[in-house]
């Protein structure tokens, strides 16, 4: 394998760090837009892990899954942004703690 060799552990550590950042953002932020962005970060961290794993074993599966994740993320963002618009329209806020009408 030619070129820059990055150890798998580093990549996985980076992916884990990104995932943790995303999760923390998801849990801690109340604004729905930031929550969506955190979700994107988490998706991308997973995608990164796939790429690294694909590279490690020389298989194309990792890149295929990466493409899948990209499209899922695009779909998710479009649905999510639609929801954001609706939430803004109904609740006049983007604070998700205010939108808790589904409580039991």
């Amino acid at each position, binding site marked *: 394998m030619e070129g820059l060799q990055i150890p798998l552990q580093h990549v996985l550590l980076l992916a884990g760090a990104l995932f943790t950042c995303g*999760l923390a953002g998801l*849990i*801690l932020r109340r604004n729905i837009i930031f929550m969506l962005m955190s979700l994107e970060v988490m998706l991308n961290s997973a995608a990164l892990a796939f790429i690294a794993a694909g590279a490690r074993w020389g298989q194309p599966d990792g890149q295929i899954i990466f493409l899948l994740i990209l499209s899922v993320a695009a779909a998710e963002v479009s649905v999510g942004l639609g929801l954001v618009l609706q939430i803004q329209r109904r609740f006049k806020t983007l604070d*998700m703690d205010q*939108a808790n*009408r589904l409580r*039991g």
Partner: protein
Amino acid sequence: MAGIWLIPLLPLLSAIALILSTGRMPRGVAAAMGAGSVGLSAACVALLANDFLADGQVRELTLWTWMAVGDFSPRIAFYIDGLTVVMMSVITGVGFLIHLYSIEFMWDDESLCRYFAYMNLFVAAMLLLVMADNLLLLYLGWEGVGVCSYLLVGFWYRDPNNGKAARKAFVVTRVGDTAMALGLFLLFTELGTLDIQPLMAAANSQWQVGDTLPVLATALLLGGALGKSAQLPLHTWLPDAMAGPTPVSALIHAATMVTAGVYLIARNYELFLLAPPTLHAIAWIGVATLLVAAFTALAQNDIKRILAYSTISQIGYMFLAMGVGAYASGIFHLMTHAFFKALLFLAAGAVIHCLHHEHNIFRMGGLRSRLPVVFWSFLIGSAALAALPFTSGFYSKDAILLSAWALPDIGPWLWAGGLLGALLTGIYSFRLVFIVFFGPAQTEPDRQPGWKMSVPLLLLCVLALCGGWISLPLTGVFPAGGHAPVSHSIEYISIATPLLGLLIAYLLFLGRQLSIAGLLASPTGQRLQQFFYSGWKIDRLYQAILVQPFSSLAHWWRNEPVDYLYNALVSASQWSHRRLAALQTGELRWYVTTMAFGLILMLTIMLRNAT
């Protein structure tokens, strides 16, 4: 006489027509149909009786097979012998007079049509009962009269007490009827038939006198007879059954239905002869009932309840007659009792009718000159009831007492009980006459009985006076009894006893030479009077030992203890539902947090197990 089947059919058709008209029939038509159908039926019976007396032939008539199940094929068939002819004559004859009387008595009632429908249905069922040639058809009539009795006791159903009395009558007789049904099952399984004549023959050939099975079977049949004929211990329904209209009491609860038990025993007497213990029990029950009821009648103050208790007492005499084997005398007493008791009830009904529905004898008085027809009727009826010499009741009751005396061993005891009963009968029947018709007037009658009431009263007066001279065509039916000749002194005693009762009643309630005021005022006397007034507290006893436990059990059961388990399941799931629903806060971040931590937890556990 070809049209025997017409006799029960006419009242039945009339009943059906009256029921189908649902009360929209004009009163005149309904009354004419109600009384007319029974009248026509009575005419048919008269023709039949005329034929029968001429040739004395037993008539059997099979209409069709009711059902055929394996070996069991009861038929709709009639068996007419002397006993049946007597019963049919009483039912249709007295029945017709009471129907005629009812037209005037019930004319102002809004449900005249319903009344005649029930009455006609009753007559049809009663005729079926006595004409049936097998015990199953007899049972159909038996239950039919029970239903009609229930319907007529609760005729004025708007008063809940009447409904209660009707239910009591129905339930108490049902106790006896259950026993009777068991008896029929037993007879069928043991002897293979329910046709009465083959049944008797089979019983005589298969069973010996005193075997267990005939004793058991007759005891079960006796249970039915006790319930229907209001004998101890199932007599409590009859006084309450007085809640019905008075002609109903006269027809059903005095003249016909309550004597069905006596008829049952007489009809199956060959079976009962195989069971001497049952016969002894019948005799003792008869004596006990006649005494208990006579003592109770002494303390009553409702005119109809006095007559009801006297009916129970007189049927006790009939049971005594059955028990000592004097079947013909018992049936004779059944007939004369039908005459004079119907007369008494109708006269009492006339008093009640003319006195604004007054029942309490102490608020009557002095009616002798105001209602002369009713007075003479009541006097004649009471004389026959008390068995004063040469009235109809005298001949029949005397015959029963003499037969009882002639029985070896226990005979004199039964005779003494019957004699004491006769004395009490004299006292309570003339107490009634003296209080109601003599003395100062208390309530003024507001009307006089019309001809439809007077004619039946007069005809029944004639029957009550002269009914004793009728000779019944019973020679072929029952074994030629004829007790051993008894000494004349015994006969004189039984003639003198009712007169003594009359004398005591006169001294106590009219001449007032004797006074029991002191006795009644004493605590013992009061307690005794209360005891008799409440009918020996038997009602309260049944209330305590049967009704109360049953209704508390029903109340407990009504809370559905079986459902406790299922209700617990429901509450448990509802409780957990509330707990679980509390987890759904609706806060997105809370969900994310718990999901993440749950995931971490699961991964931890999985990885731990993997290593």
